[in-house]
């Protein structure tokens, strides 16, 4: 990370929400986009677990593009921070991720799927055609057995890949999902212009 973004918060207080609220109105809010690739949405849920801290955070950031906001935008805007949950499984996801990378300054891989591949990468041990056959032809719940072949359906890659195998990632936040406190720590550090430091107290891989 080269340039610090957001207003630098110099003094730490124990109550994070109070701290965010106490900060005087920032000259410009940090623009954020979040993206949900091959993941379970749990990381976004964990972000929402920031609870009342979201109110303070909303004074500092603007979420312009996200599966959890209701703003309709035709095209992905230019943002300061891109937060991505999930790994890259298909052509469409790769396209979206690359687009976000182009339009953001800092890209954050949020959660284990984005960092390591995690559960979507379980299929990496098996050939793609076996995976598709298991899901669409052999699965007990299938009424008709047909592997989707419409040209509109994005093509699955032979392996699910963590983000950093596709684009440059600036910050990894592990966890399945990362705890809301960890997300808060990472975001507030970034807003303060620092890179989060990881140790046994804030790291969780599960």
């Amino acid at each position: 990370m080269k340039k610090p973004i957001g207003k630098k918060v110099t003094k730490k207080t124990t109550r994070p929400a109070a701290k965010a609220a106490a900060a005087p109105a920032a000259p410009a809010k940090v623009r954020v986009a979040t993206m949900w690739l091959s993941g379970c949405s749990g990381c976004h849920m964990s972000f929402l677990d920031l609870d009342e801290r979201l109110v303070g955070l909303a004074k500092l950031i603007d979420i312009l593009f996200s599966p959890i906001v209701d703003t309709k935008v035709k095209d992905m805007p230019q943002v300061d921070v891109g937060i991505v949950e999930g790994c890259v499984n298909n052509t469409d996801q790769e396209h979206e991720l690359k687009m976000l990378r182009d339009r953001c300054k800092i890209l954050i891989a949020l959660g284990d799927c984005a960092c390591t591949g995690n559960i979507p990468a379980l299929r990496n041990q098996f050939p793609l055609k076996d995976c598709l056959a298991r899901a669409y032809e052999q699965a007990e719940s299938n009424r008709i057995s047909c592997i989707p072949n419409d040209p509109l359906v994005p093509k699955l890659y032979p392996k699910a890949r963590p983000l950093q195998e596709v684009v440059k990632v600036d910050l990894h936040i592990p966890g399945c999902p990362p705890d809301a406190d960890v997300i808060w720590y990472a975001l507030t550090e970034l807003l303060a212009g620092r890179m989060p430091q990881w140790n046994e107290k804030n790291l969780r891989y599960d």
Partner: protein
Amino acid sequence: MTATKKISLTINGKVCAGKPGQTILEIARANKIDIPTLCYLKGLTPWGGCRLCIVEIEGSPKVVPSCTTPAVGGSKIITNSPRLQGLRKATLELLFSERNHFCPMCQYNKGDCGLQHQGYLHGINNVRYQYLYPAMPVDLTAKYFGIDHNRCILCGRCVRTCDEIEGVHTLDVAYRGIRNRIVVDMLKKFSESETCTSCGACVANCPTGAFFDKAAAFRGPLASCQQVLTTCTECPLGCGLKVFVKENRIVNVWGDPDSPVNRGHLCVKGRYETWAEPRERITQPLLRGKDGKLKPATWDNAIAAIRKAVKAAKKTEKALLVAPRVTNETAQTITKFTGKIDRLGMYVTANEAALCSDPSFNADAMRKLEDADAIIIIGVQPSRDHGVVAARIRTAVRKREAKLLIFHARKSDLDRYANICAHEVSLEHQFWDEVAAALEGAQRPAIVYGANAMTPIGVTVLERLIKIFEGHPGRRAPALIGLPVGTNSLALAAAGIEAVEDVGPWLDAKPLKFLHIVASDAPDGGAGMLEEKYVPGLLDEIPCVVVQAGYRSALTGKAAVVLPATIWCEKSGTITNLEGRRLSLRPVLPVSGEAREDAAILESVFA
């Protein structure tokens, strides 16, 4: 003497003392300086595989693994520097990327995993190498545990444990480079293994979740469990148990590393059979109804029924039979009632009565066995009945090249390590000359004998051996280690309870109207013990048979009244092991249902 000389070196600027021959890691840990490790485990040969314990030595350009590098006096060691941190991080990242170490899918993800712990300590939030996602097999064919190669880091702790502690060397490492993996008996599955004893030490010593206990799976992280130390009551060794308990359930059972008897090692009986086997527990008193079926009853009704039968029978028509596994405290209670009954006995396996007739405890038997350079087995099967003894014998033979001679014992896996293995004992001079030759030069011989050494053949062997030892002046007398099968039979015999190996005639001696059997928590109610001399119809002829037991069995099936007794993990009291140590049982779980302690039940029946 160089052995007593001390060396002094500086670690991280702190002056540390140690002995020559100690490794840097040993001295550092003794001086409370922590160096991260994964493949190192105290008690096993250092392997130098994981490379986490690397340190810098001043004046040397390269880093060295501290677990395998002997300390040199006067050297200056650095255990933590940016360079070492960087190397350790890279090593850990390589480990993470090599196999499928995905914490969310692993039951060891809450503080039980060494790899995860090191990842946290080193602040690894991202692996810079490409994940390989290899397709790794999982072997679930072992009865009590499984191995998931996806989570293996090839630290080799299981291999060394299997080789150096259990002494069977079932596990080893095969293939090269990236295909390198742990194998069982030259590429077999666990179910096909002829050498695995299911001791489960590999599981306890695995730093990751590669080896896991099936019964412990998803019962909760060990790190969150309460640990209770108690004593195994499956054989007269009395191994120390470390029981992991959570929410009144046993999560796992490991050996107690501080126990002088087993020093952390267990056999399949103590490690798994007591808790991982499905056994039907008796939790309330049962009375046999008029239709011949056992029905639940209250304690008051059951005791009233028994006391009625006790009163109706004359003194000569009453007998008490106990399992040889009851505690010393129960034995004290039992002996109070000898005046009220005709016969008091404990049922023991064939020929064990002679072993109990002169109860002799060999203090320090386990240490002597571990130290022996010639081990003679007579009439006992350690690998079936006393697993930890068998492990000590195997390691003595394989690691210290001790001689092993087996006489008059059934076939077992120990046979293949034996210098002389005589299932059938010959009396020819040539054979005994060979025996004498094999024992030539033995400085610390140990004779491990069991019940079958008390047969005429066994006694002959013992006599001849003693003649061999006496015939060579200057040779030390062998340590005699008697191994009964009954857990507490030696102490019970010493307390004055008659050992009965032939239950049939014992019961038949005078007609009985009331027989009380204390089966305690023997898995088969002790029916297995009774079986050999069991006369099936015999119990049917006695009008009132009371069985107090922890589990349903063939024996409780014969009873008119069944009383629920506490089992090993609910008991308190002591047992005396073959070394004469009084070892404490501590309640691990609350008493289940209406079960009561053996002694308390006896009090309410006979007092």
